[in-house]
């Protein structure tokens, strides 16, 4: 989604962070279920109890640069198979 108003064909922001989250999701400790992961570049910056805290820490630690905050799905169980897809949202 996004309006064609000058963005050209630039790669969407947070590609790297989304890919990392997808890759790491099957390996995350199930105790992290429901928590919020702060990702920047190729690393996890931290794991937080609330989304707002993760966002606050993102701005505090990284500054006003794009970063990814994503919730570890509640009920996560460790699996050897890769996730079927990235976290998704239905059409608003």
């Amino acid at each position: 989604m996004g309006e064609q108003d000058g963005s050209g064909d630039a790669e969407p922001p947070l590609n790297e962070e989304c890919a990392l989250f997808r890759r790491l999701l099957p390996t995350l400790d199930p105790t992290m279920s429901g928590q919020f992961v702060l990702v920047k570049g190729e690393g996890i910056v931290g794991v937080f109890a609330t989304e707002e805290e993760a966002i606050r820490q993102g701005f505090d630690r990284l500054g006003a640069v794009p970063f990814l905050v994503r919730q570890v799905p509640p009920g996560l169980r460790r699996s050897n198979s890769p996730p079927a897809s990235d976290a998704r949202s239905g059409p608003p």
Partner: protein
Amino acid sequence: MISVENPELLETGPIVTIRVGVSEYAESALRRGNRAVPEAVPARALIDTGSGRSLLRERLARTLALTPVGRVEFDTPGSTDVPALEYYARFWVDRSTSFESKVLAAPLPSGNLEAVIGRDILALGVLRYDGPGRKFSFDFGPVAGRPDSDLR
């Protein structure tokens, strides 16, 4: 509290003019980096109980230089894995009242709408829609324990 009387409420729906700006967290980060803090800008927002997420026109997010804090992908009837950025923005109801919430950037169908206030923000208060009276109001009231939204 938002309170609007509109003789054309039936035709237009509950639209309110608010102001949208960077969040306090982003503002602090910008100041630390000696960067300019964009002024909040007026925006026409539709209150939509049919939308689970609040939306912001992507162009407005760029105008305000909002910082992406998330991204989701979803499928539409014509496309799959369509990416949409999420921003954490501040919404000013009046000069002294604002709240902050994560919003999803989206193309909006009506050219004069800049935002949609969905159920994630409506969860913060009480919406009253008076059809015969052609008016509506949204009272934030006490805000309790919502992690990603904050009345200030």
